[in-house]
C-alpha cells in the first residue's frame, strides 16, 4: 500500500511539473481505454456488462492491472440504461454491444429563430423529444421518463466513478493530469446531433447568418457545460473533441467554426480551466489558429506531421497523440517500440509533451495486446525529455 502511495505521488508530480512548465522526471503516460475495451479484455459479454454495471469492477480492475499508465485508463460515462429509457435515436447499442450514434438531427430549419432567442428552451421543448422518442409524449408521462432516466444515469455514473476512484488508489494512478470536464465547440454541438452535419452544410449556403447566430447562442451553454463541478485547477482540463473543422473550407472555418470555439477555450482558461482538445482528422492547415489558444492547452493529435506541429505549437501547448493505434495491430513488437521512440525523440525535447495514442482504443481486438503493453512499458522506462 505504501508503495502505491509513493508511486501515486511520483505520478502526480510528473503531471504537476508538466503543467507547471517544468521538465518532469520522465514523459507521463495518459492512456485512455474505452469501457468496451475493458469488458472485452476481461472476456465478458459487452452488452451484459454495460447493463449489469456490477460487472464493471472486475473488468476495470483487470485492465488497470495489466497496462502501464500514469492516469487511470478507465473511462465510462455513457451507459445504455438511460439511453434506452429515453428511447434514444442517437445512442443505440449495435448488435455487437457497441453504443454508437447514427446521424440523427433534432433541429429543423424553422427552429433556428427560437434557438437563437432561447437555446435551452428550444432544446428542452423541441430538440430532446425528437431525438429521445420516449419524451415525445404528454407532460405527465414525460416527467416519469425523465425521472427514471436521470436516476439510471446517476446510479450508473456514480457506480462507475466509485469503482474508478477505488482503482486509482489500488494501482497508484495519478488522479490529476487527464481531463475532468467535457464539452464541444459550438459549431460541433450544432452539427453533431442538433442539425446534423449534412444539414448544417446546406444551412451555411442557404441561411448563413442563422448558423452564426446559433453558434453564438450555443456558446454560453458550452462554457457552462465545460466548467467542472469542482473549482478549476491548472492540473485539470475539459475534454473537447474537435469534429467538423477539417471538413470545411478555410473561409467557412474562419467564419463558422473558429470564433465561438476560440471564445469557449479562452473563457474556460480565464476561469482557470484548460482545454484538452482531441484534434481529430487533419488540422495541418489550421495550426496557426491552434497556436492562438491559451498557453498549455492540451492537444491530442490524430494526424499530422509531429515535427511540424512540435515546431509550431510545442513551446506553447502540451502535445500528445500521433501514435497510430493501427500499428499496434499490423506491426511487429519491435516496429511498435521503434515508432514510440521515433515520436518521443521528436516530441519530448523541451518538455510540454505526454504520451498517448492517436485516438482512444475502442476494442480489445483492434490492437495486438502484447504490442500495446510493450509500447507502454518502453515509454515508462525510456521516455525522458
Amino acid at each position, binding site marked *: 500500500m505504501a508503495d502505491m502511495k509513493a508511486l501515486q505521488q511520483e505520478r502526480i508530480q510528473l503531471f504537476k511539473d508538466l503543467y507547471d512548465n517544468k521538465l518532469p522526471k520522465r514523459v507521463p503516460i495518459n492512456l485512455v481505454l474505452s469501457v468496451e475495451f475493458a469488458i472485452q479484455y476481461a472476456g465478458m459479454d459487452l452488452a451484459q456488462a454495460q447493463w449489469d454495471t456490477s460487472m464493471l469492477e472486475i473488468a476495470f480492475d483487470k485492465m488497470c492491472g495489466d497496462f502501464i499508465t500514469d492516469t487511470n485508463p478507465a473511462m465510462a460515462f455513457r451507459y445504455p440504461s438511460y439511453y434506452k429509457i429515453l428511447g434514444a435515436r442517437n445512442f443505440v447499442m449495435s448488435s455487437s454491444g457497441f453504443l454508437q450514434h447514427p446521424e440523427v438531427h433534432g433541429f429543423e430549419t424553422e427552429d433556428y429563430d427560437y434557438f437563437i432567442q432561447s437555446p435551452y428552451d428550444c*432544446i428542452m421543448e423541441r430538440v*430532446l423529444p425528437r431525438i429521445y422518442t420516449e419524451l415525445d409524449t404528454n407532460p405527465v408521462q414525460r416527467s416519469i421518463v425523465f425521472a427514471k432516466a436521470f436516476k439510471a444515469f446517476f446510479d450508473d455514473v456514480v457506480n462507475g466513478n466509485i469503482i474508478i476512484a477505488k482503482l486509482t488508489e489500488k494501482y497508484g494512478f495519478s488522479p490529476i493530469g487527464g481531463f475532468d470536464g*467535457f464539452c464541444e465547440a459550438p459549431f460541433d454541438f450544432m452539427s*453533431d446531433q442538433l442539425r446534423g452535419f449534412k444539414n448544417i452544410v446546406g444551412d451555411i449556403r442557404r441561411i448563413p447568418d442563422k448558423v452564426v447566430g446559433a453558434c453564438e447562442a450555443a456558446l454560453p451553454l458550452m462554457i457552462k*457545460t465545460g466548467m467542472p463541478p469542482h473549482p478549476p485547477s491548472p492540473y485539470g482540463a475539459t475534454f473537447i473533441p474537435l469534429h467538423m473543422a477539417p471538413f470545411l473550407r478555410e473561409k467557412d472555418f474562419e467564419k463558422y467554426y473558429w470564433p465561438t470555439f476560440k471564445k469557449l477555450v479562452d473563457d474556460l482558461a480565464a476561469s482557470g480551466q484548460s482545454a484538452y482538445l482531441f484534434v481529430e482528422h487533419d488540422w495541418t492547415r489550421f495550426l496557426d489558429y491552434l497556436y492562438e489558444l491559451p498557453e498549455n492547452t492540451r492537444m491530442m493529435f490524430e494526424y499530422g506531421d509531429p515535427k511540424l506541429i512540435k515546431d509550431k505549437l510545442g513551446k506553447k501547448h502540451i502535445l500528445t497523440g500521433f501514435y497510430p493505434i493501427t500499428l499496434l495491430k499490423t506491426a511487429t513488437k519491435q516496429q511498435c517500440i521503434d515508432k514510440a521512440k521515433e515520436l518521443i525523440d521528436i516530441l519530448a525535447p523541451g518538455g510540454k509533451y505526454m504520451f498517448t495514442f492517436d485516438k482512444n482504443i475502442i476494442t480489445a481486438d483492434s490492437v495486438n495486446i502484447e504490442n500495446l503493453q510493450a509500447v507502454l512499458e518502453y515509454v515508462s522506462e525510456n521516455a525522458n525529455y
Partner: protein
Amino acid sequence: MNTQYYKTWDEYMAEHPEIDEKLIPVMAPKIQGYEEMMFAFVMLLLM
C-alpha cells in the same frame, strides 16, 4: 441564461421569499446542486 428551465439560486430565492435564512447554507447546495445536475445531464444527452 434566457430560459424558463434553469434557475440560479438567486432567481430561485427571489421566487421563494418564504425560505428561512438559517436554512440557506444547507438548502442552497442541495437544491442548486440538483439544478446543476439536471443541466449537465441534458447537455450530455446532446453531446
